[in-house]
């Protein structure tokens, strides 16, 4: 089981085709991929905010119908991606050692409950330290290879 961050979730939702993405997509097809509410919320905030990237430019050049289709695809978490509720996670988050922010506590608690590893697109010292303190593994996935 793998708990993925917002960037890796986006790669799965957009059916990306690199080596690392193929591994994640295969895992998702097998029902092995979860994310967290915080990471899903980060992705939603990026999609809702016009920015400077290629996605923003491509969306601006798309028809309204295409824009709606893309927003619907990224706003609604597919049933094939797991998400544990705060009802389950908050007691575990409260028992984690250290002072953690919401995103880190939710990710580590989800991994503890699921017996999962955490996969992220960029290294995070805070997350790595929190995960290590409770024997949860963290993998940094190099996207675009």
């Amino acid at each position, binding site marked *: 089981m793998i708990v993925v961050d917002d960037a890796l979730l986006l790669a799965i939702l957009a059916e990306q085709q690199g080596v690392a993405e193929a591994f994640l997509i295969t895992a998702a097809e097998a029902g092995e991929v979860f994310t967290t509410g*915080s990471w899903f919320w980060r992705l939603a905030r990026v999609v809702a905010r016009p920015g400077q990237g290629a996605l923003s430019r491509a*969306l601006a050049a798309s028809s309204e119908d295409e824009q709606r289709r893309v927003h619907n695809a990224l706003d609604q978490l597919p049933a094939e991606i797991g998400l544990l509720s705060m009802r389950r996670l908050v007691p575990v988050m409260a028992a984690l050692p250290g002072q953690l922010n919401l995103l880190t506590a939710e990710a580590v608690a989800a991994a503890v409950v699921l017996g999962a590893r955490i996969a992220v697109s960029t290294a*995070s010292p805070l997350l790595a330290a929190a995960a290590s303190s409770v024997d949860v593994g963290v993998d940094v996935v190099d996207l675009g290879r």
Partner: protein
Amino acid sequence: MAISTGDLQAAAERARAAASEAGELRPARIGKVTTNIPEAIRAAIREDLASGAYQKAAKDAVAGDPDLAQG
């Protein structure tokens, strides 16, 4: 009051049992994830993920919200 490893294990076991009973330890549906995003948009997403533009946009989008910082 310090939290012990035993407290964490007990909380995790309770959460796991409740999630298992509710069928939440697996996604609600097993199979291929299909979102029907147009190819031009998929290519733009690929570019943003590979260049780091997505990660920068995410950092900007949650700036000022320490609970969502992935630091």
